[in-house]
């Protein structure tokens, strides 16, 4: 008897949690497949989308995708379709053939966010980018040949040296993810070295030494950097990490160098602002604006409403978005007031009405070029 009552109580709890959202019926339902279920970025994108719901007459539901299990991702998409989604935005280039087949069968449209769909772009372009159910994707920053991230790293190092003439960075080493997973990171390294060579030629008295890239220690296999890195690169002033700093910083802390050595890294992780700029090791961080999700969102809404931009390209595209690049205390101060850290929709680049105006069904004058232009103007300087 006790067990039966416990079962009833659990079911009641589940109903209490689920039913209110089930009854919040709106015209359109969009499913979002994120790659994690927590963190400031998650909270920010959810806050941004929540604010759009009344204006767009939309409901957003969420799920978490797997970084390595294609079958699970397919199941998650199927569950979103089962939940009644009219459109789905995913953050993984995974099982695209089968996922798009599901979307075709269900009459649902698919977009991409925080992913450049590089594997599909190179190996399955027709199957994905020519697919009627795929509307396009916005990358996590730049994609394709757009990316000149290496130059950004270089600029940040130079800016740092100008601000800190007594303690400039003269000797650096680099880290990156493996090429098979992130092929563009090797080009970032080449870009950085290219710029350093030019700089050294013009400024021999301020030359910057870059340690040769060592495959054994400098490639991070999606886990924390090994402390042997410092043995391989003795005497460095800074690490330029073209991959996420979260794989580098903890090792710097445990090696006791986080107070002296500097870190120029991609990505932003919760709490990094406390050790940024004058407060700590981090001197550069980059994050994509959460508002970039408007690109696939608007295209989905257009499709669902049966309209298209007059200048819509025939094939789906993958677009770069501008990034929030912080390399000073002032930049960080601005970033701290952005929706990314406040999770307050009022701090977003775009209001709900502005997003609605980007759509073709609400604004007959809206264009694809206009939508793409919005993506270009989400930098740190554009923050109010």
């Amino acid at each position, binding site marked *: 008897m006790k067990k039966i009552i416990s079962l009833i109580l659990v079911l009641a709890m589940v109903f209490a*949690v689920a039913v209110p959202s089930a009854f919040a019926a709106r015209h359109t339902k969009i499913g979002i497949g994120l790659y994690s279920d927590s963190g400031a970025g998650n909270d920010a994108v959810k806050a941004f989308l929540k604010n759009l719901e009344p204006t767009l007459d939309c409901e957003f539901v969420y799920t978490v995708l797997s970084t390595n299990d294609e079958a699970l991702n397919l199941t998650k998409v199927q569950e979103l379709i089962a939940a009644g989604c009219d459109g789905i935005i995913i953050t993984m280039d995974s099982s695209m053939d089968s996922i798009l087949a599901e979307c075709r069968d269900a009459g649902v449209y698919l977009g991409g966010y925080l992913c450049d769909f590089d594997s599909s772009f190179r190996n399955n372009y027709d199957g994905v980018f020519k697919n009627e159910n795929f509307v396009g994707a916005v990358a996590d920053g730049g994609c394709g040949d757009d990316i000149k991230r290496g130059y950004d790293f270089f600029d940040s190092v130079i800016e740092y040296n100008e601000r800190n003439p007594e303690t400039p960075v003269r000797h650096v080493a680099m880290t990156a993810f493996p090429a098979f997973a992130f092929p563009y990171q090797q080009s970032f390294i080449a870009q950085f070295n290219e710029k350093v060579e030019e700089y050294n030629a013009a400024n021999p008295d301020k030359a910057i030494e870059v340690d040769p890239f060592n495959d054994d220690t400098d490639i991070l296999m999606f886990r924390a950097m090994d402390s042997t890195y410092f043995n391989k690169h003795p005497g460095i002033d800074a690490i330029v990490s073209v991959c996420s700093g979260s794989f580098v910083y903890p090792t710097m802390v445990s090696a006791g160098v986080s107070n002296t050595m500097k870190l120029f890294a991609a990505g932003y992780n919760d709490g990094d602002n406390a050790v940024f700029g004058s407060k700590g090791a981090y001197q550069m961080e980059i994050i994509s604006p959460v508002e970039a999700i408007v690109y696939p969102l608007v295209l989905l809404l257009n499709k669902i409403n049966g309209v298209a931009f007059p200048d819509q390209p025939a094939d789906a595209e993958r677009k770069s978005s501008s990034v929030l690049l912080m390399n000073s205390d002032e930049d960080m101060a601005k970033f701290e007031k952005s929706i990314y850290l406040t999770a307050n929709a009022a701090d977003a680049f775009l209001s709900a009405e502005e997003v609605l105006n980007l759509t073709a069904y609400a604004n007959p004058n809206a264009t694809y070029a206009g939508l793409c232009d919005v993506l270009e103007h989400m930098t740190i300087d554009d923050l109010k």
Partner: protein
Amino acid sequence: MAENVKTAAGKTDERVSFAGFIKNHIFDLTAYAGLAVMVILFLIFNSGPRFMYNLSSVIQAAAVYSILALGAVFIYSMGFMDVSLGQQVGVYVILMILIGNAIGGVLGIVVGFIAVLALALLCGAINGAVSIFLGLPSIVTSLFLMFFFTGAQYLMMEATGENTIRLAQTIRPADRNTYSLMLVIIIAVLAIIGGYVFNYTKLGKYTRAIGANKTTAQQSGISLVKWQVFGYMALGFCIAVGSFVMLTRTGTAGKGTGTGYAMDIMICLILGGMPLKGGMKSKISSALVGAFTYTLLSNVLTTMGVPLNWINFVKACIFLLIVLLTCRKSKGILPR
């Protein structure tokens, strides 16, 4: 209450009433309760034009779990588990893609499957035999295989230079309903074969006896080595078939394909009422009951709109509840 009727030999012949039947099978019946609740919730929250779509999604998601769980029952009934299960699936899917793409056509798929089947049966034999010969707990051998296959999966993907590889040809029927029917047939055939083998052949009876009491089994003429090997090979067969079904579903594979499946299968079996220590109370039905309960649980929570942050918590509560409902208390033993 049961009526006791004395036979001529002085043995009581119990004619059991309906209430007595319920009482005697309360633990078995509650093992189905979880599935029943999930089915009811599924029907409630999936009514509408997408019902058939949703049903076919559930069948697709449950298919691989069902097939793997059917094989795992033989191992779990001996009180063992195989932690290399997921990694084997990953490697086998990758192998089938590589062989399928290299040879091409139907032949490529067939050769790929046969190669994977042979490898799976071999790994089953190793898993079953090595632990006995070396006197190790079986989990140690399967851990070794897990690490081996993790490394193999990684190296194979590195060699391709890609994050994900895909099968060049489509092996799944274009029509969704046809595909669902194909999966149902595969599950049904394997369930019938599994049910026959588990309930009516030596393999099933001996694996349960080994799980119940290894010493008694041995002293009753059961060769531990032989039947342990056969049990693991039965699982190997199901892993091969399950990998093929997964390939038909996704058409792709990567470094992490199959990760976590060993735990998923254990959860499926627990939800299906399988006693983790194995023994005579093991039931082949726990495979299908558990696989579908597990799949429906995830599906229903999403379709009900349970917030993302709550899903894992709710899953944990429901899992705990079903375990409490299906755990078997040993009956009171009369003192002599």
